[in-house]
């Protein structure tokens, strides 16, 4: 049993390696994944009064969100359009393994993006990161969750424009409701309830705590757990959706 799991994981990894090769460096990924959230964020944070650790954590989170969903939302759709998806369907891998492979590609992409944004950001803002390991863990789980979200969109969508529209439909409201531009405490309480349903909220919170605190707090651990659950559930649902779509 454990061996079968390991073999599936290895195959998922090969799929992600292939995806990295084929899709990472396409221009739209960079524009949508990077320039857009950065400019969006700058526009809003100038307007609002927020402190540095909020800027650092909020900006990093939405860069991961936009970057990973940009590549993942089309990861399955593009392969359906070119016909290469048939290769994956004919191969001895489960839908879950296949989609995990797709999500892993986004996961690694997210890690790189986070490093690219976080390094200059801490230097410019003069932030001293309290515990780099906790920061890394928060980034990793955020990246996996948002990739899984993108994969779900991709499993559902029939073609690229639909996938892009759907992912925008999810990530823009999420960016506004998850405490990135505005601290949760300042939000009306009804919105606060909604924000607790959104994975970005947990990502921002975990990142902010790990930047400020050197030891993991209970909230931090809970955030990570919630992100892990989100990843798993999103992938399971995506596998089901894909199966439905192909019948």
């Amino acid at each position, binding site marked *: 049993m454990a061996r079968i799991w390991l*073999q599936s994981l290895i*195959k998922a990894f*090969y*799929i992600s390696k*292939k995806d990295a*090769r*084929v899709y990472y460096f396409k221009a739209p990924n960079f524009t949508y994944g990077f320039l857009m959230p950065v400019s969006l964020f700058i526009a809003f944070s100038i307007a609002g009064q927020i402190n540095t650790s909020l800027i650092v954590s909020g900006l990093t989170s939405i860069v991961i969100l936009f970057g990973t969903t940009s590549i993942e939302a089309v990861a399955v759709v593009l392969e359906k359009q*070119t*016909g*290469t*998806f*048939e*290769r*994956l*369907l*004919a*191969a*001895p*891998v*489960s839908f879950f393994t296949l989609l995990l492979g797709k999500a892993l590609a986004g996961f690694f992409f997210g890690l790189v993006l986070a490093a690219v944004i976080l390094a200059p950001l801490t230097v410019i803002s003069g932030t001293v990161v309290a515990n780099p390991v906790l920061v890394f863990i928060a980034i990793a789980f955020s990246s996996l969750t948002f990739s899984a979200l993108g994969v779900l969109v991709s499993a559902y969508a029939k073609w690229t424009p639909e996938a892009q529209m759907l992912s925008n439909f999810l990530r823009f409201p999420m960016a506004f409701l998850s405490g990135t531009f505005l601290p949760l405490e300042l939000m009306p309480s009804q919105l606060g309830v909604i924000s607790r349903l959104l994975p970005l909220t947990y990502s921002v919170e975990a990142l902010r705590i790990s930047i400020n605190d050197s030891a993991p707090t209970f909230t931090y651990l809970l955030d990570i757990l919630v992100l892990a659950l989100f990843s798993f559930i999103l992938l399971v649902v995506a596998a089901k959706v894909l199966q439905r779509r*192909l*019948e």
Partner: protein
Amino acid sequence: MEVVAKAQYLTKRYHGVLAVDRIDLEVYRSEFFGLLGPNSAGKTTTIRMLTGQTKPTSGVAIVADYDIIHQPIKAKEHVGVVPEASNVYDEMSAWDNLIFAAELYGVPRKERNKRAKDLLERFGLYERRGDRVGNFSKGMKRRLTIAAALIHRPCIVFLDEPTTGLDVQSARIIRNLLKELNRSGVTIFLTTHYIEEADQLCQRIAIINQGRIVALDSPEKLKALVEERHVVEVSFSPAKDLDGQLKGLKHVSDVSWVGDRFRLYVEDASEVIPLLIDFGRENKLRIVSINTMKPSLEDAFVKITGLSPEVMATEKEHAKKGESLG
């Protein structure tokens, strides 16, 4: 004989459309099996069900002793698939495509390079192994797709119209490769709408029309179904539209037009030939050639499916103009 793939009562319905209708078939080890039928007959759907890419509405599909519905992953480990459209990655090299296929099928690491090299050499692609596949011709891509389907040494390979849309030369290369593969022991399941291709390659042929298998036998046995009919081919100069007049001749049951010749289906050739000579004289036509022929698989196909020979002719023209086999 050992059965490596089997369909029982296999059916697929798409929103009311019966794409495949209760088909039964068995493919034996080391066999070259053909599924022959016109466009929309249900060939692709059959392959997609047998290879676990789409779920049958009802019925059973067994491949390599595994039920494809209940143990899809186990079954897929033993199956190679070459779909209608080449499905290699344009952005990667030929080499990387093969290695990725090997990885997906769990080929042991130390075997991968050796197998990729062997296959590329065998398929005449080794010199181009480092090139982006996006720059390959259609024929080369098709060859690479077939190579990728073989990297895990499947016990059966499914090929969906592998020569459709290729130029004459590339199609011939593919057919020769497939013959060679089969000689080396690989079981092949091929779909095609080229009657001559099926005749030339396959040991047994299932004829499919509107989702149903209407005949399943060796090409020779299928031809024997129309043995009692003789065929006489004649061409006249000047060439004219003579179908109607020829059909009116005694002993002639049907007439079709093949290239510049008329094909006459008759009961007895020796009675019809003198009539044709008279016919030419009366109409001031010179007989350019006259041949009697054994019935072809096309004749059998026409008889079995009830499709007119012209329909199959236009079908062929449509896919590839004037392709000749070789």
